[in-house]
């Protein structure tokens, strides 16, 4: 295969990593900061390029922009093979958008040791782009870990309250999840007899000679719980709200928005097509955990939160319940809903974390009891936050609506009972979402907020803060009003397998 001169996928991965390396080798701060804009913009531009040209691009097994680079492990069937199919493409674009917003915000933040902070964030961004561009399962895992390591360091060094405990807990939970999923991936590789980690080859081999049904069940369980821990499946979710509560904002945006989707992506892109008989024995149990654990229990827990950032963290755990329910259906309809929800949730949760931090800059607290009345002084901020909350609840007009609606329809066919539970969850999310808006922006300012406002007058969102927020909100509205921009690709990818 001849290599093209312009490989948007490789450029999107390498650009942030190259700058991170340059910073590590001692690039001066002035240049680091300026070039960081470029390094975060390149994945975004490449993502848009891929999105724009996806429909017309030549495809192999449904993958467009396929390239293959030998890294010397070809004897084991490992090579850096890049490409995006209809499932990967929307997530790749989303990673570019959220990455740019998080990067922009980080560059303009007042973080201590900004150079190192940007370096870690750039490594994370490179890894995130790599996850969704990898056709090779080894590199898919590899890029995930590459993006994960900076998370631990950023939580531990730049984090807020309980940062060290949170960093440690995240590290142990996520390593366990990653190890379990690695074991499942190795098992699939060895058992398939394909001698290749290439997803296309694995797919062809397993389509010709499937693994025995009972073995599929075991492998699927390994992947389900491994990936499940990474996506905060109840009851393995406790690291998530704690970690997000402590994480610095850009890091929380990238992790909750993009990196956490790795587990769902792995289930959809690897586990479901390669182990088609594996889901059925687990579907009921998964649906019970997701519906009663993630949606109802965590939904109630979210209502009880007083800390704004923890509340967003819990709400993200809750929304992962919908994604698991969609996967439990196992139908193309359900899975397409999950992919759509992953994109929309990634944008909306990143926007919420971004706004939570801007609120914190005004009030110097995350405690919602000490806020109130912020809407009068900062109406633009209030509008953004309300919009992000509506998106997260799943109101029409935002992307989340289509994702959740599709999942509910699929769920109705799977089991009307679970569908009822899931719909009840929407009411829970409306309760905590609207309550948060009311407590932060409406009503009278609390005594603590008044004291704080005397010291530093509250300003509305600056343009430096509005740009990333507008980007995220614009993307949410765009896919909300024009869902076909993604669904055509998603559906064709799901239909072809």
């Amino acid at each position, binding site marked *: 295969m001849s290599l093209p001169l312009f490989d948007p996928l490789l450029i999107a991965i390498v650009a942030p990593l190259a700058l991170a390396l340059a910073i*590590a080798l001692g690039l001066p701060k002035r240049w680091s900061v300026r070039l960081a804009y470029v390094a975060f913009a390149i994945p975004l531009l490449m993502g848009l390029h891929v999105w724009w040209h996806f429909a017309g691009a030549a495809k192999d097994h449904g993958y467009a922009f396929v390239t293959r680079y*030998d*890294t*010397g*492990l070809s*004897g*084991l069937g490992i090579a850096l093979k890049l490409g995006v199919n209809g499932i990967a493409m929307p997530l790749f674009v989303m990673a570019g958008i959220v990455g740019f917003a998080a990067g922009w915000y980080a560059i303009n933040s007042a973080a201590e040791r900004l150079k*190192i902070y940007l370096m870690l964030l750039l490594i994370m961004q490179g890894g995130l782009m790599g996850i969704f561009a990898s056709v090779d399962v*080894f590199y898919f*895992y*590899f890029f995930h*870990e*590459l993006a994960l*390591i900076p998370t*631990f*360091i950023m939580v*531990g*060094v730049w984090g807020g309250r309980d*940062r*060290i405990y949170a*960093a*440690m807990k995240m*590290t*142990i939970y996520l*390593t*366990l999840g990653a*190890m*379990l999923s*690695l*074991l499942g991936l*190795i*098992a699939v*590789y*060895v058992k398939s007899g394909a001698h290749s980690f290439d997803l296309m080859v694995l797919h062809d081999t397993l389509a010709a000679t499937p693994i025995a049904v009972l073995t599929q069940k075991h492998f699927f369980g390994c992947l389900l719980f491994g990936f499940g821990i990474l996506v905060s499946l109840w009851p393995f979710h406790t690291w998530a709200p704690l970690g997000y509560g402590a994480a610095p904002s850009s890091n929380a945006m990238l992790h909750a928005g993009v990196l956490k989707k790795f587990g769902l992506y792995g289930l959809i892109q690897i586990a479901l097509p390669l182990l088609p008989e594996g889901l059925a024995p687990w579907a009921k149990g998964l649906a019970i955990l997701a519906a009663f654990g993630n949606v109802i229990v965590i939904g109630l827990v979210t209502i009880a939160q007083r800390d704004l950032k923890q509340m967003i963290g819990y709400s993200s755990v809750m929304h992962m319940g919908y994604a698991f329910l969609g996967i439990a259906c196992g139908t193309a309809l359900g899975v397409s809903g999950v992919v759509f929800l992953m994109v929309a949730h990634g944008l909306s949760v990143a926007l919420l974390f971004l706004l939570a931090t801007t609120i914190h800059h005004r009030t110097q607290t995350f405690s919602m009891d000490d806020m109130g009345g912020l809407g009068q002084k900062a109406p633009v901020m209030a509008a953004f936050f309300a919009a992000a909350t509506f998106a997260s609840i799943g109101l029409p007009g935002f992307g989340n609506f289509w994702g959740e609606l599709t999942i509910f329809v699929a769920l109705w066919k799977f089991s009307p009972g679970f569908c009822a539970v899931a719909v009840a969850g929407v009411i829970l999310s409306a309760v905590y979402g609207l309550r948060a808006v009311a407590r932060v922006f409406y009503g009278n300012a609390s005594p603590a907020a008044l004291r704080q406002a005397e010291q530093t007058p509250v300003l509305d969102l600056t343009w430096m803060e509005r740009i990333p927020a507008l980007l995220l909100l614009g993307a949410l509205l765009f896919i909300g009003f024009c869902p076909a921009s993604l669904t055509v690709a998603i559906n064709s990818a799901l239909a072809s397998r």
Partner: protein
Amino acid sequence: MSPSLLPALAANNTWFAIWPEISLGCLALLLLVLEIILPVSARRHIPTVAILGQLVLFGAVLADFHNGYVGHETFNGLLRHTEGGQIMRLFFILCSVLVFWLARLTLARQTMPKIEFYNIVLVVSAAMMLLAQSNHFVMLFVALETVTIGLYILVSYTRSNALTLEAGLKYLIMGALSSALLLFGIVLLYGVAGNSALPAHSGGAMHFPELARFLTANPHNSIAAIGIVLVLAGLAFKIGAFPFQIWIPDVYQGAPTPITAFLAVGSKAAGFAALLAVMRNVFPAYEWLTTPVLSIMAGATIIFGNLAALTQHNVKRLIGLSGVSHAGFLLLGVLAVAHTPLALGAVYFYLFAYLLANFAVFGVMVHLAGANDPEQELEHYSGLAKQDPFLAAVLAVGLGSLAGIPPLAGFVGKFLIFMAAYQAGFHGLLAIAIIGVVISIYYYFGWLRAAFFEEWRPSTELAPRPERTPANWSSKLAAAVLALASIAVGFCPGVFGHLLHW
């Protein structure tokens, strides 16, 4: 010497086959000569000369990698030259160079004579190289004893320190015990193979192929089985596998830091080279015995090493016990060697990744240690990232690679070992290994936590922290090369791929 033997030796002059070992020996003698003839002011350059000499040797061995001896026996079957042996030669030269680097920093704080230290390290390295190529139990035992006796001296080198002396004594006693076990095992095997009542008996059963022939003809001999277990036990001491790991924490703590590194990397690798040799060439007929013995050993080693490391506060003990768990992972690879061609390359790869990561960590440790070498506590690392970000970054790469975190070399090593173990069907051990990895994250992370997340509070500390040595340019260069090599090998493992014939 009988007159007929001389022409035979002359015709079969194979001394050239071991030129790297002879060169190392000559280099060792050269150091002593230089110490006598050079003026006192110039003597501090002697280690530099030795390092340069070894780097040249490294290049020469690399250039001579595919020489005519590979695949042949020399010295009447005492040695057998293989590609694995060539790889281990490179490994031990690299290891020795890095020990020199550490020793230059550590010995500068001591008032001991220095050249003898380097001299012994060179001789021990040469013996390790021979050990990796031995094809005869006499060669194996003599090489192993040369290594061990050299290390007896090196472990207690800074003899003014009580903990160092204690370490030396413990190493001496345990080392003697392990040698005795190994020797007893060899004798039993030799004796039973000479029993003329048994098929394929042989008087030359010290020679690996002869012994392997005998064992294949008698696959269920109980005396041979005892001998095999004893040989494995003797080697288990060297690699620090459960239940023969008890000497590790005390000896690692007491020994001078360069020698701790030498034990952790060189001595362990030498043990694995010997273990690979006997497992592949001598004991395959007794797989029914070696597989369960090594399986139990590997599982227990992983669990013990990781659990024991959890509670350590002294970094030298911590890295020693983490090394025990690495021995367990490597044993997993050794077990898989009989079943899958991938495993041998995986073991060699793991050893190199382990070398790069360990020396990066030790390189940071020598900069933080004071004159009292055994006293290196986790608390001393607090605030390192603020004071010296370079050393902190090297430490992070080293520990991350040891923990097996992508994209570092250690991850690829663990990945290959796990894949080999899965292919070979050791599913239960694999589950234990994965639990071990998760536990290990905790203590590696604890170390990094001290370096990155915690502030140094002098007032709360009873004992003062030793003065940190800022890294000079050559140290920085070496540490940066090690850290970058760990990253580069992780991103592009193929650097070793062709070397290891995947």
